[in-house]
């Protein structure tokens, strides 16, 4: 009986167990089925939904290359910056759309004009509005902390020029998207710009990144090293600005180069601008006068005429010319000297910058030889300097000349040149007849921009003729029109120039507006630097001669640059002067 009862109990238990197993089995099968449905059947749909919410393709901004001077000082650099962007709810009324904008307006300094413009954009259905671009990190942090709906802070980069207006015209400038607009920034935009990358970011519900995958790595822009020297650029720019203020000139330019290598050490134009605010600068200030402005070189051009006659043996430095006449008649007009000279040796003609003597000497050349020499010196074609929009100048061929053209050309009229062309011409004399191309770039992305010149580009003038002319130019500074450029302890070679400017209303040259210039090199025997100074329309106290206006600027720049380069005056210390050496010797 007891066994029967136990058996019945066991049966009941087994039945319950089976029932429970079936229920659990069904429950497990249900879960498994649902799992299969979600993971297998609806996999693609769920994956799309999840990744759509958590996955984001984020561009990796590339870094624009840095521009350095020859000593590794940063001239242009990109730094992190932020932009505040607003994405409104598409269906919200305009007042609701504007509310977040008005909330952050005081922090971002948005004025009524900007707010009105944004309102118009939102009314037109704009889905994306930049509230402010390139804000500093502190402002970005404040806006982020305000946690305003629809507002987002986006990482950006801002181009900065830590040296301010230094070398502004060489560097140029960029737009808000860091695209080069002028200067080196424009010319080498592709190299500097690099290529943007892309990364896949997975975020959780709290927008925390938990997986980042780089899909394509950004290609950073290449760094560029210029031949400019920050200190020399500073000296050039400072002295140019001082002269501009002193003489109330309209514009001016200074270029400093190393003649042997053709490297530009400084290139300054005035009026200038700050590339940090490129868009705000007046267009007139952004013109690079050293490569774009054309002018008649006046007497500085006599170096070309003198080189030609000396090179072809048409005159000797000691040969005399009668410069006693008040003026020399050229077809259609007469050309005068700035003072009467009498009989001058040809060397003195250049030393004292006699127009009458120069024209007499040039007449021995003939038009073809004069034209060929002018072209050999590089006038009428671009120097090929690494800057955009260089002007080629204007040199008409002999078949377009008038009867007075050869005379006018020999003293620097009826020809338009750029400042770089004039400096290149003087460098030919400094290099004793060899032409070495001017260059501004040392390297791009670590690779030399131009191979180091192993030899001169071409010979323009014989070494003997160039040597004779260099000696004449030393005398021009020591006793001629260029005494303002005299530098104690150094032999300076140079030539002054004062040219009348063209008056478009009168249709000819005017005697009331002038361009003052000086171009030279120092030390004359082994030139370390060559400098060109041009100042247009100096007005102060009617002083407009190149020797009075431009030569002193040359002297001050040369003084500072030579000291900076460690080139000491060739003359020894004055007798009795206390020097480190004399003190050491006295102690012994």
């Amino acid at each position, binding site marked *: 009986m007891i066994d029967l009862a136990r058996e019945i109990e066991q049966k009941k238990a087994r039945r319950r167990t089976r029932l429970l197993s079936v229920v659990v089995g069904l429950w497990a099968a249900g879960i498994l089925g649902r799992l299969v449905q979600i993971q297998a059947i609806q996999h693609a749909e769920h994956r799309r939904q999840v990744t759509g919410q958590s996955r984001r393709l984020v561009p990796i901004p590339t870094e624009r290359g840095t521009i350095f001077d020859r000593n590794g000082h*940063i001239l242009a650099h990109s730094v992190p910056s932020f932009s505040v962007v607003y994405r409104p709810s598409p269906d919200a009324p305009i007042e609701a759309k504007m509310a977040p904008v008005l909330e952050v307006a005081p922090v971002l300094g948005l004025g009524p004009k900007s707010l009105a413009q944004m309102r118009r954009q939102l009314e037109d259905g704009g889905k994306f509005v930049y509230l402010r671009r390139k804000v500093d990190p502190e402002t970005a942090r404040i806006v982020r902390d305000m946690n305003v709906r629809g507002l987002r802070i986006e990482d950006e980069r801002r181009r*900065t020029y*830590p040296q301010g207006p230094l070398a502004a015209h060489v560097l140029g400038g960029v737009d808000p998207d860091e695209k080069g607009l002028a200067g080196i920034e424009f010319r080498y935009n592709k190299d500097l710009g690099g290529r943007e990358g892309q990364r896949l970011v997975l975020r959780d519900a709290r927008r925390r*990144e*938990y997986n980042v995958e780089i899909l394509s790595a950004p290609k950073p822009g290449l760094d560029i090293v210029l031949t400019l020297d920050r200190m020399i650029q500073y000296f050039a720019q400072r002295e140019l600005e001082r002269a501009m203020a002193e003489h109330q000139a309209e514009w001016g330019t200074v270029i400093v180069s190393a003649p042997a290598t053709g490297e530009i050490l400084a290139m300054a134009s005035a009026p200038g601008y700050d590339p940090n605010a490129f868009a705000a600068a007046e267009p007139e200030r952004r013109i690079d006068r050293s490569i774009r402005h054309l002018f008649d070189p006046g007497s500085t051009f006599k170096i070309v005429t003198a080189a030609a006659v000396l090179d072809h043996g048409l005159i000797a430095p000691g040969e005399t010319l009668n410069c006693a006449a008040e003026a020399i008649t050229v077809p259609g007009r007469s050309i005068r000297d700035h003072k009467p000279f009498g009989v001058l040796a040809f060397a003195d003609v250049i030393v004292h910058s006699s127009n009458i003597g120069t024209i007499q000497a040039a007449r021995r050349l003939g038009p073809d030889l004069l034209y060929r020499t002018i072209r050999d010196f590089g006038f009428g074609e671009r120097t090929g300097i690494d800057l955009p929009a260089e002007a080629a100048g204007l040199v008409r061929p002999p078949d377009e000349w008038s009867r007075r053209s050869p005379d006018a050309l020999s003293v620097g009229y009826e020809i338009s040149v750029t400042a770089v062309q004039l400096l290149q011409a003087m460098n030919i004399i400094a290099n004793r007849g060899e032409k070495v191309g001017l260059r501004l770039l040392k390297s791009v992305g670590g690779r030399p921009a131009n191979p180091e010149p192993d030899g001169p580009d071409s010979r323009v003038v014989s070494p003997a003729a160039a040597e004779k002319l260099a000696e004449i130019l030393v005398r021009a500074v020591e006793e001629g029109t260029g005494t303002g450029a005299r530098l*104690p302890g150094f032999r300076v070679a140079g030539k002054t120039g004062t040219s009348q400017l063209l008056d478009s209303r009168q249709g000819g040259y005017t005697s009331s507006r002038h361009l003052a210039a000086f171009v030279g090199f120092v030390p004359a025997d082994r030139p370390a630097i060559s400098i060109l100074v041009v100042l247009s329309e100096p007005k102060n106290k009617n002083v407009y001669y190149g020797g009075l206006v431009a030569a002193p600027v040359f002297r001050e720049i040369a003084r500072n640059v030579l000291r900076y380069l460690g080139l000491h005056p060739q003359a020894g*210390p004055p007798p009795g002067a206390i020097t480190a050496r004399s003190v050491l010797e006295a102690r012994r």
Partner: protein
Amino acid sequence: MVHKKYSRRQILLAASACLVVMGILTFYLWHLTENIRLGYAVGRDQSAKQRLEKDIQSLKAEREALSSPERIEKIAREKLGLGDMRDDQIVYEDRK
């Protein structure tokens, strides 16, 4: 009704199999969570690295601006009262 009796060995094997499966599942879950935890850590470190790189770039530009010749000359003239050297104030070493 005759019930099959499982031997101890069979029970032990089944228990071991269950333990192994549970162990594998536990390891898999641990691996997943650890992966995500490390993902967060990498994300944080990458953000920190980016921040530091940005700081370095800003500091480099700031250093250049602070050492610009114009600023140094201004300080020398206005704060230190220095001026341009005259030629007679400079004595060059007589190099032999």
